[in-house]
């Protein structure tokens, strides 16, 4: 897991630490007067939680303190020790120390902290004995250089400049000395080692946290050294800069005293907690905000967006009416300004709600690994574009569909190693999950190089399940036939495995994607692999929509579902089984008369114009043409749910308010398609 970028978890850790420390403080304060079992239990849990999360983050000093706290609390809990003032004091001292370490971490200075005495004291209390004379510090972090060392180095600088390398090992580094030794070797190859901190013996015995420092002379520039150290395995962070007396006591060499080009924050291959801590102030200044409040803000901005459009329209009307009127011009200007501010505000709030898709992707490697082991396959999972951001509401909703698809790829897509070798493919299968922005959407592809989907089998299954008649199946193109994998109850797996094959899954995937207003597409080449493409809106609160008029009612079709708009001539329309279809670039696309399926207009009143507008929409894998009366234009609209009062209305997913103050309905494309199918 060392390759994981932990920096994104830092905020979470800090938030959690805040919460747990608060609990600790409150409960510890009461503990002395009222040492109930329940209270002890609470404190123990808080300490335990902190230990776990700090370990995971690689903050070992923090973890050590909480570990000792836990030991002590366990004894108290078990009744082997009684709560005394001394113990309460010690616990509070722990709190102070933990708060201090936490503050240090938040400022990006890591968790190196002199906690030896405290730890010793806790250990002593746990033993129930009196203070020992020499509560030797177990490990004096790497921050404070012993006076002798400073003196020695100061001496040495007189003979020439000394470089200082502060190397931080990955928190889970197993052979710390080996790594330190490699670093020392590297120094000896390109320079002269002057001193180490801690000293060689301590290094050898691995009696140091995760940071050590090397002082050496070299002609090579500092950034060069930085790379050298970072190339050593399990090195989380390496900082190299000139060492000078006085400033040496400062934990981090300041930028000013470094040669140009060397930044204290480095970008190592592995970037665990250390680097995260280096991010400094931007984590110390976060505020936790309730999601509900963000939603409320988004709503308010939504209303502002509506009024902005409204004011702009009124302004335009006034401008047309009162030409050359000074105030009208001023109004236009102000409206323009408000419009800009509103969109900025909207952007900012949208951004505040954005999360990188990584938060979803991070669940995959483990799942794929475990699953591959279980089914005896070799799979390499590649994730790309994890930093692509999208609204948290979308993030929350896409995790499961993606997992489903991945699971299918592992279980059905990728062949067992023997089969792959036989087929002349590399033994290890590859699954690539990639995300990218495309206009106002996010596109997520899940691609495997497995056996592909057996179209003949899909057809056969579809026939067996009564989804299609054998004759109709004959006529289906491969691409159309593939769509049946999204039908409920259809699985082409020969056997139901523990993992998948029950035929529930792809239909759930489809319905989840549809709920989000997304499109899912599948392509498959037998023997080569399968690729699922998901296209999702970035946010669910404000969408761009295509305004159309149908029987006098204005509908907003979410642009995310719109593939294209066409002006179709009557002659182009053909009839298949009494259904109107048109051919678009060779693809047969059914037409749905929107007014008729929604019961606004009547089939018999159909006007027989020569030409009419068709909006080609794609929902999930289907393409369908909606016949509308008029195309009005494109607009950003704020989605308002239909009141619970109105209930579910077929073909309508919500409402919105247009610039002219009127209410328009948001078309539920999926619903319209289902209505059309039933008609």
């Amino acid at each position, binding site marked *: 897991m060392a390759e994981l970028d932990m920096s994104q978890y830092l905020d979470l850790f800090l938030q959690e630490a805040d919460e747990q420390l608060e609990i600790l403080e409150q409960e510890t304060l009461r503990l002395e007067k009222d040492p109930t079992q329940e209270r002890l239990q609470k404190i123990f849990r808080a300490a335990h939680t902190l230990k776990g999360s700090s370990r995971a983050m690689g903050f070992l000093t923090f973890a050590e303190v909480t570990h000792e706290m836990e030991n002590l609390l366990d004894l108290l809990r078990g009744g082997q020790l009684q709560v005394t003032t001394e113990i309460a004091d010690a616990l509070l001292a722990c709190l102070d120390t933990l708060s201090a370490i936490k503050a240090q971490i938040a400022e990006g200075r890591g968790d190196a902290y002199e906690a030896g005495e405290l730890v010793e004291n806790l250990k002593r209390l746990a033993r129930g004995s009196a203070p020992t004379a020499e509560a030797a510090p177990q490990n004096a972090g790497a921050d404070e250089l012993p006076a002798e060392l400073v003196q020695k180095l100061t001496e040495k600088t007189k003979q020439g400049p000394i470089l200082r390398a502060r190397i931080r090992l990955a928190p889970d580094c197993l052979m710390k000395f080996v790594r330190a030794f490699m670093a020392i070797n590297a120094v000896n190859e390109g320079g002269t080692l002057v001193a180490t901190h801690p000293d060689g013996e301590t290094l050898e015995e691995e009696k140091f946290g995760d940071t050590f420092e090397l002082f050496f002379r070299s002609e090579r520039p500092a950034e060069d050294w930085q790379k050298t150290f970072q190339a050593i395995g399990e090195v989380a962070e390496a900082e190299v800069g000139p060492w000078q007396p006085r400033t040496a006591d400062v934990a981090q060499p300041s930028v000013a005293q470094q040669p140009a080009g060397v930044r204290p924050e480095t970008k190592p291959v592995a970037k665990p907690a250390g680097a995260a801590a280096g991010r400094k102030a931007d984590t110390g200044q976060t505020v936790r905000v309730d999601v509900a409040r963000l939603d409320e803000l988004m709503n308010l901005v939504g209303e502002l967006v509506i009024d902005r459009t409204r004011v702009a329209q009124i302004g335009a009307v006034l401008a047309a009416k009162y030409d050359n009127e000074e105030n009208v011009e001023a109004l236009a200007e102000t409206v323009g300004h408000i419009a800009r501010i509103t969109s900025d505000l909207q952007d900012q709030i949208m951004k505040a709600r954005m999360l990188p898709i990584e938060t979803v992707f991070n669940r995959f490697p483990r799942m794929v690994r475990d699953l591959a082991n279980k089914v005896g396959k070799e799979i390499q999972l590649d994730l790309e574009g994890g930093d692509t951001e999208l609204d948290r509401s979308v993030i929350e909703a896409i995790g499961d569909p993606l997992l489903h698809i991945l699971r299918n790829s592992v279980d059905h897509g990728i062949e067992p190693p023997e089969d792959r070798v036989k087929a002349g493919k590399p033994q290890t299968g590859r699954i690539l999950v990639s995300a990218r922005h495309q206009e106002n959407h996010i596109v997520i592809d899940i691609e495997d190089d497995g056996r592909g989907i057996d179209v003949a089998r899909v057809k056969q299954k579809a026939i067996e399940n009564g989804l299609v008649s054998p004759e109709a199946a004959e006529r289906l193109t491969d691409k159309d036939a593939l769509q049946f994998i999204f039908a409920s109850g259809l699985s082409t797996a020969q056997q139901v495995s523990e993992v998948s094959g029950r035929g529930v899954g792809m239909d759930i995937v489809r319905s989840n994607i549809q709920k989000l207003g997304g499109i899912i597409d599948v392509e498959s080449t037998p023997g080569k692999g399968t690729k699922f493409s998901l296209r999702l809106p970035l946010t669910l609160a404000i969408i761009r929509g295509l305004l159309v008029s149908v029987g006098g009612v204005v509908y907003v079709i979410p642009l995310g579902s719109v593939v294209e708009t066409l002006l179709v001539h009557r002659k182009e329309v053909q009839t298949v089984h009494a259904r109107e279809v048109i051919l678009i670039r060779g693809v047969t696309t059914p037409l749905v008369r929107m007014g008729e399926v929604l019961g606004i207009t009547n089939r018999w009143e159909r006007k027989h114009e020569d030409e009419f507008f068709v909006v080609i929409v794609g929902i999930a894998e289907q393409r369908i043409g909606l016949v509308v009366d008029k195309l009005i234009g494109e607009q950003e609209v704020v989605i308002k749910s239909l009141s619970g009062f*109105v209930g579910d209305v077929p*073909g309508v997913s919500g409402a919105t308010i247009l610039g002219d103050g009127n*209410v328009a309905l948001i078309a539920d494309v999926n619903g319209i398609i289902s209505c059309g199918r039933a008609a």
Partner: protein
Amino acid sequence: MSTAPVLNHREQNVIFRLGEESYGIDIFRVHEIIRLREITPIPGSEPHIRGLVNLRGKTIPVVDLRTKFGLPPAEDTESTRIIVVESDRGNVGIVVDAVTEVVTVEPDQVDATPPLVANVTAEFVRGIAKQEAQLITLLNLEQAIAA
């Protein structure tokens, strides 16, 4: 449905007209009264739902009480109003022919069991209030606007 006294204490009611009848709803349930404005129909919704209106940036559904009560439809006029009331499921507008007044109804003015007096099904009615010369049907709002 009610056998206990309809009102336990005096209550102010907003009185409105539908055709020839007067109806009253508890003033505390009334959010505001607005002039008729553009109502966007929702094709496919229940017949008594006339559509949605924009109330200062919020969309609220509007119920046509005439349809609900099985009265013949009427033309919208200058006096047609939308009474915005608070319901369990958010604010709802009801279209009425006119809003006439606000009256204080004393408990002893109300008859519990409505005789077949109004054009309205009994379940929508809390009671009938006698006010001077006129009879006012006190509406059970939740029932009257429910689907």
